[in-house]
């Protein structure tokens, strides 16, 4: 495994493969992650894009990619990836492309497709051992159409579907755990605001075969209700407050790549975002805030105990 390529921020590429001029919102955290991922994977990548914000990356005749891109319905991106992989394998077997010309097949999908509409096709692709990377930009809602609730929406967040404006009553679905339960070759959580951690994980994923997943939390100024300039700050706070654990799974084991220490109170992250403003104004919703903090504490408790003990 070649983790050595990215030791310091300075090792990150200073020119980007992904072309400018896309229709993503200013300050889009999903676009930041896709840009960073593409830089590490390189030009020999074919994207199979499930419908969502990122399908607007390519609007005929414009594309930011340097290679192929395929658009599928929300539920069928892994099936599209299977077809592309099979075609590449046939070309390889017939000697019509060299191993160097082979492409990395990457599904690009939002959380709506990744954790909801497209989940069964994904599960089947993992079962078949499909050799692909599944990249999910998780903006915690159906962002492209105005941020309706998805299965990845966090507890207490306001969305466009929340007519009563009381905040999402459910809890964010743990897509990482679902993937791990399927025993893939690799799975990792990342965030664009931590480019070094992201680059290292992508470098690792790139060197492996089989089903691999990269789950990127994607701060979304439009859907989360904050000024675009705060995108990176919010990303960092997601990590520092522990609400977005950075971790990776390989060889049957999950390892955290960052142990936030000291872990900041989760409200530092929440209060910067309009979708959580109702938890602070007109009056602090203490029970709700405590619920959210308790859930984060419960997640980290065993890890912190282990760390303190060791």
């Amino acid at each position, binding site marked *: 495994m070649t983790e050595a390529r990215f030791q310091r921020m300075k090792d990150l590429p200073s*020119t980007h493969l992904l072309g*400018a001029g896309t229709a993503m919102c*200013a300050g*889009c955290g999903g676009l930041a992650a896709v840009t960073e991922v593409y830089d590490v994977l390189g030009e020999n990548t074919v994207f199979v894009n499930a419908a969502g914000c990122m399908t607007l990356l390519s609007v005929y005749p414009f594309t930011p990619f340097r290679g192929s891109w395929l658009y599928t319905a929300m539920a069928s991106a892994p099936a599209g990836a299977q077809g592309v992989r099979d075609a590449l394998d046939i070309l390889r077997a017939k000697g019509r492309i060299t191993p160097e010309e082979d492409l990395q097949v990457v599904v690009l999908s939002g959380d709506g497709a990744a954790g909801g509409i497209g989940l069964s096709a994904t599960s089947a692709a993992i079962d078949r051992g499909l050799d692909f990377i599944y990249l999910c930009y998780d903006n915690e809602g159906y962002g492209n159409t105005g941020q309706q609730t998805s299965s990845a929406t966090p507890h207490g967040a306001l969305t466009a579907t929340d007519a009563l404006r009381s905040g999402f009553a459910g809890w964010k679905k743990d897509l990482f755990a679902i993937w791990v339960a399927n025993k893939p070759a690799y799975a990792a959580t990342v965030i664009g605001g931590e480019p070094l951690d992201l680059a290292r994980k992508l470098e690792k994923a790139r060197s492996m075969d089989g089903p691999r997943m990269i789950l990127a939390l994607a701060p979304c100024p439009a859907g989360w209700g904050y000024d675009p300039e705060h995108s990176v700050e919010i990303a960092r706070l997601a990590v520092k407050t522990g609400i977005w654990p950075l971790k990776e799974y390989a060889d049957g084991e999950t390892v955290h790549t960052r142990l936030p220490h000291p872990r900041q109170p989760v409200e530092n992250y929440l209060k910067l975002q309009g979708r959580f403003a109702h938890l602070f104004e007109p009056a602090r919703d203490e029970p709700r805030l405590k619920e959210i903090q308790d859930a984060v504490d419960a997640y980290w408790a065993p890890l912190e105990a282990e760390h303190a003990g060791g």
Partner: protein
Amino acid sequence: MYRIRFHGRGGQGMKTASRILGTAFFIEGFEVQDAQRYGAERRGAPIFAYVRADRTAIHERGVIGRPDLVVVADDTLVPVSAAGVMQGIGPDTVLLIDSAESEKTWRERLNLQGPILVLPRLIPLEPSEMAYVGTECAAAAACLTGIISLASVRQAVQQELAYMKAGVVDRNVEIASGAFARMAAHSGIVQEGGTTSHHDRTVPSWVDLPADDIGESSPAIYGAATSVAVRTGLWRSMRPVVDTSRCNRCTWICGSFCPDSAIARGSEGYPQIDLDHCKGCMICVAQCPPHAIVAIPEAEAVAQEKEGAAS
């Protein structure tokens, strides 16, 4: 039937404008349709919403092609053809532009027969109040119809913004009242368009084209990164400017955080900002460790450039 279109940028509250106007019509006893164009929602990107109102049931559907009133919340959209501001404007269509420039300038520039009005913005709006532009436009539009009372507009604002904080609602009611009053001299200028029916529609003389083979007719792009032909720099309202005297030449920082591939390592290692594509998110300004990037209003930067070019 009244057919009214609102054009603005994502974040300026055009959807809210159509809802407020629609509700105000409804309070006056009209049948109403109001909708935002379905599609991707992007802050800063051109967006439009529209309202139909009639005293009988409305059977027309879809985007308004022949508007009686077009309200433009952001005058920089007029020349952007993709925004479709000028679409279907006829001799009777009233055009209301929120602009610092005069009606005369707009008349000369656009060469239109119909009435053009400029919405003078008397109440200074804070940048944080950008979303209130929608309220202002809705109230002005309501006044121009001449058949919606101020009381109905105020009630519509309260109803549509009920979920917001009391102070915000009051401020919006105040903005609506001000805009309504400023348009009083033109009350009733917008005339109802007639009803249309598909029976009256002349069928175009189609030319039949045989369908091509899928291999030829499906769109394919063979160039790499053709998106750079799209100048998203037009979205920007603030411009990042690097102060080289403070810059540490650590472009892996600002260059990694720019989501739009708009920062490259330039000569001598200083960051080079691609102004054709920088969307003005200001992430680089917020993330530069020695604060070597400053944000200046785009309009100011453009004016300075013009001055520089002239001297």
